[in-house]
């Protein structure tokens, strides 16, 4: 099946960003409207495609559109062509849908910013790039979108780059992502060298013939890429700082869509990971590590956005874990990705709304009892909260529980560790999310009277409400009759998750719920029963301190990469000056001094000149004598 309208998905927002960037200040008045409309119309196109897709039989659903031949050298042929299948449509709808909502939200949220137009240009650019990422039909096309979203995220994190810290955060994000991109590009090279193709279809077809070694290598490289983009261990350090960007950005890029690209990549490459168990196991392990890592960090953060960021990290950990569990997990990884898209975006927007009302205060210790002042925000945030900690029947319950369950059923020690980790993560999640809600909305007011907390305008709470609806209902919809599993079946081989099972689903759910309740309870004991100091207590355990420092990730990076790197640079600069260039200068110098020395023979005394002649003659005689002997 081919379609001619796929390109519009990308073209519309791309056009928007181009217009806004080129028109400059002239478009200040109407720029945001245009951007929102274009993003919305992209959503409509997506819906149309979705409708058409539903109309076709299960194996006819994928559609492609070839635009032009992009690169073609020898056997290396890459077309600029798009592919929309069951997997990518999910993303298209998520990106354009949530994206549009956040556009709307931003109209109000950024209304006071002089550069709002530029902001919307970047947003549109992001939408376009992200769509290219999920629509590209080959790894190379994906790569373009992959770095495109990186660029957009860099621009948006650094939107207020007049603040040096923010500029640094943006750079950090870009560089961390580049490390991941390195992985992706290597993966592409390897797959071309081994299979002679880089298109999804081609690789899927050839993967069978390729050696496991090569496939494992590709898999690991893809995993590195994913860790970079999706802020997974060990490349997760940038996400917390990325909160420097305006809150809608955090909601869209660093919660709902971009950071989940890694999960998309792994799921998309299922044919590689299924054939490379080692790589697949690594994926699962990375996921498990990260979900705990993020959760622990989350417990220590007082900055509401950083807390949410940590939780995002942790939730993506769940998705990666799911994707790492192979056919059993892909569907649920995607499901969690979607539900998370709703509730996390919603909560971020909520956070934004809170900041909006508290003139950009982000420290939760300066909040407290805000539910009275911003009821809608509280309500929507609350629903998102229930969803993320996995209380039935909210969305998170379905998606997360499934992953935990599949993890346990992975079998053997692997299953127990992964499942255990996931379960533990759930408990911690419950704890820190409860903490967030309490510190923000419950308890007594801790802000000074300068702040006048107030509910946000409709343009802002409307998207929040819609997302809240999503976070309530989506779980049920996706799981009803395994609808999502069946939907994705043609793309990712899904297997019923119930053979050789360790624990019955019911058992898992109950275990999970019990732990969740424990977490909630603990948080209530700790933060609702006792008064919360408006300054973060300093006399805390070493563990807390480490957690506050993102488990020393930055310190590690600095100690292991940055400072040695800087040293190396300095050394090389010195080497270049002293040795490489010095060698050249040395030769020149030696020649010169030789010249001066030889010049000394020019004594000015005619007798010494005569001596030279005489010696010369004798020398020649000697030479010729020797030669003719």
């Amino acid at each position, binding site marked *: 099946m081919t379609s001619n309208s796929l390109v519009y998905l990308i073209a519309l927002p791309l056009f928007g960003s181009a217009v806004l960037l080129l028109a400059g200040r002239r478009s200040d008045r109407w720029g945001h409207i245009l951007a929102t409309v274009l993003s919305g119309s992209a959503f409509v196109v997506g819906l149309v495609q979705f409708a058409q897709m539903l109309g076709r039989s299960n194996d006819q659903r994928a559609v492609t559109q070839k635009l032009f031949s992009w690169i073609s050298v020898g056997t290396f042929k890459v077309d600029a062509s798009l592919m929309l299948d069951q997997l990518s449509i999910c993303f298209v709808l998520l990106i354009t849908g949530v994206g549009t909502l956040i556009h709307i939200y931003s109209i109000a949220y950024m209304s006071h910013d002089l550069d709002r137009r530029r902001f919307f240009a970047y947003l549109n650019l992001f939408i376009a790039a992200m769509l290219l990422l999920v629509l590209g039909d080959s790894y190379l096309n994906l790569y373009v979108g992959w770095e495109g979203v990186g660029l957009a995220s860099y621009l948006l994190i650094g939107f207020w780059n007049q603040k040096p810290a923010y500029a640094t955060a943006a750079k950090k994000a870009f560089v961390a992502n580049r490390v991941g991109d390195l992985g992706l590009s290597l993966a592409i090279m390897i797959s071309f060298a081994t299979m002679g193709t880089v298109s999804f279809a081609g690789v899927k077809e050839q993967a069978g013939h390729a050696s496991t070694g090569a496939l494992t290598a590709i898999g690991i490289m893809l995993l590195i890429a994913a860790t970079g983009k999706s802020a997974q261990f060990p490349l997760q350090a940038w996400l917390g700082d990325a909160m420097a960007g305006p809150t809608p950005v955090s909601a869209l890029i660093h919660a709902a869509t971009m950071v989940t690209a890694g999960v998309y990549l792994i799921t998309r490459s299922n044919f590689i990971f299924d054939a490379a168990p080692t790589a697949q196991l690594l994926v699962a392990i990375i996921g498990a590590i990260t979900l705990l890592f993020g959760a622990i960090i989350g417990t220590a953060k007082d900055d509401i956005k950083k807390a949410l960021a940590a939780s995002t990290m942790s939730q993506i950990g769940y998705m990666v874990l799911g994707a790492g569990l192979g056919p059993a997990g892909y569907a649920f990884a995607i499901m969690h990705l979607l539900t998370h898209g709703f509730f996390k975006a919603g909560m971020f927007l909520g956070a934004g709304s809170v900041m909006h009302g508290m003139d950009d205060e982000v420290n939760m210790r300066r909040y407290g009892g805000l539910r009275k002042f911003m009821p809608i925000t509280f309500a929507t945030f609350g629903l998102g909260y229930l969803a993320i900690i996995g209380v039935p029947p909210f969305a998170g319950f379905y998606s997360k529980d499934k992953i935990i369950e599949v993890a346990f059923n992975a079998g053997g020690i692997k299953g127990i560790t992964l499942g255990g980790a996931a379960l533990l993560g759930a408990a911690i999640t419950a704890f820190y999310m409860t903490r967030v809600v309490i510190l923000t909305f419950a308890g007594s007011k801790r802000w000074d009277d300068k702040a006048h907390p107030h509910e946000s305008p409709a343009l802002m709470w409307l998207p929040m409400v819609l997302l809240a609806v999503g976070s309530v209902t989506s779980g049920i919809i996706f799981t009803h009759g395994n609808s999502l599993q069946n939907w994705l079946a043609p793309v990712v081989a899904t297997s019923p998750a119930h053979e050789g099972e360790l624990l019955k689903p019911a058992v898992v759910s109950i275990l999970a719920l019990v732990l969740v309740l424990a977490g909630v309870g603990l948080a209530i004991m700790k933060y609702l029963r006792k008064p919360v100091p408006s300054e973060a207590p300093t006399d805390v355990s070493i563990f807390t301190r480490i957690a506050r420092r993102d488990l020393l990730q930055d310190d590690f990076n600095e100690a292991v990469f940055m400072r040695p790197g800087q040293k190396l640079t300095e050394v090389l600069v010195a080497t270049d000056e002293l040795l490489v260039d010095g060698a050249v200068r040395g030769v020149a110098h030696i020649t010169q001094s030789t*010249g001066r020395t030889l010049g000394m023979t020019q004594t000015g005394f005619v007798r010494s000149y005569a001596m030279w*002649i005489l010696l*010369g003659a004798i020398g020649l005689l000697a030479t010729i004598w020797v030669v003719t002997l």
Partner: protein
Amino acid sequence: MTVFVAPSLSYSLLAPILIVLGGAVITVVFEAFLSKAIRPVAQLSVTLGTLVLALVQVWRIRHESSLTAAMGSVAIDGPAILLQATVLILAVLGVFLIADNEHFTVVAATLPGSEEERASIQSGEKLTEVYPLTLFAVAGMMLFPIATDLITLFVALEVLSLPLYLMAGLSRRRRLMSQEAALKYFLLGAFSSAFFLFGAAFLYGYSGSVSLAGIYDAISGGTGNNVFLMIGIVFLSVGLLFKVGAVPFHAWTPDVYQGAPTPITAFMAAATKVAAFGAILRIFYTSFSNAYWDWRPILTVIAIITMVFGSVVAISQRDIKRMLAYSSIAHAGFLLAGVIALNKAGLDASIFYLFAYGVATLGAFAVVTLVRDSAGEVTDLNRWAGLGKRSPFVATIFATLLLAFAGIPLTSGFIGKFSIFSAAYESGNKLIVVVGVLSSAIAAYFYVRVIVLMFFTDPADDGTSVIIPSILTRATIISTFAITIFLGVFPAPFLNFISSTATFIR
């Protein structure tokens, strides 16, 4: 009693030399009888006339070739014609410079700084002895490369040298230096010609003949005492190598170049090299060619030392004339590569190189005569700073000539370098080529340094200025510049002419 058989001299072939000698005699007579007032003009016109006439005659006999002229003591063949023509052209250009009496003391006999000297200069008279000297030197230079027996060679050598010794001492300013230059040049020159003569003696002893042909036959025959041959070759070479300024017989070059009046330096640097190398080529190509294996190593060693030494020492020079002297030493090394090649290509290349180099050298020294302050010429390099700003035109020409010395493409120097090195390579002397290339890389440095001084350094306000050149000087400068560029861009006709004419006859 035997009938007297008049020797067959074939005057027409000797005519060029005879004309020059005749002119020389006329100028001497003028010196004696003409009034001081009209002497300069008369001498100049006679000299130029003579040279031009000789040049015409050379052109007329260009297709002749004979061994029997002057009873076989000279050979008239392609190289002879070409070299004579070259010498004459350079002489004309040189005389254009010499015509500027500014450079010469009025009465060489007066004591430096003495009353007479001042008076003589005030009198506004001009020194004219230089013209006969020049003509005699030219005659010697024309005879040297065509001589085919040892006597003629020796005589020619002396005829070309003796006037130069004197001319070196005629400078108006810095007379002590000038006289010292003359002394050094004379003593060392005489010293080296003693070597030459001694060598000649042993060659005669070896072959029993004084003619190059006879020596060739003896070598080919292999009869005769090889020790004599060795001594002969070595000592003869010493004399010749001295004239071209090859290391270690070079020591006179910088001093004399610096001390002598610049026009003389120009003339001698250009023309003497041509004559001396002409002789070297003839002797080694015709007479010693079969002793190749004996003399090739020593010449190779000499050539390499000369290239490297000249280039390296030139770097540390602070005086433009000395620098050019060392550069001429380096070029002598390159030219020796052409001698060692010992093939047709080598001969053609050498002749082309001699012409190109001679012209460029004359031009360069001509420019040197223009840079002056109240005390006369300024040869201190540092004071050349910013010349490009003072008079871009002159500076550009000088830069071009330097680039030609450096062998940059689109100048005559490059074609010369290429042809000579390819000839050397063709004869299997790869080492020379490599060394030559490297040393010309070194050489490039000091040429470039001068360009930097002229163009990229700001002029110091020390009264250094570029004088408006006389018409003749201007003619020299412009024509040398034009030839240098032309030979760089369209060398084909010239190269064709050389390769079609240049063949030694034995």
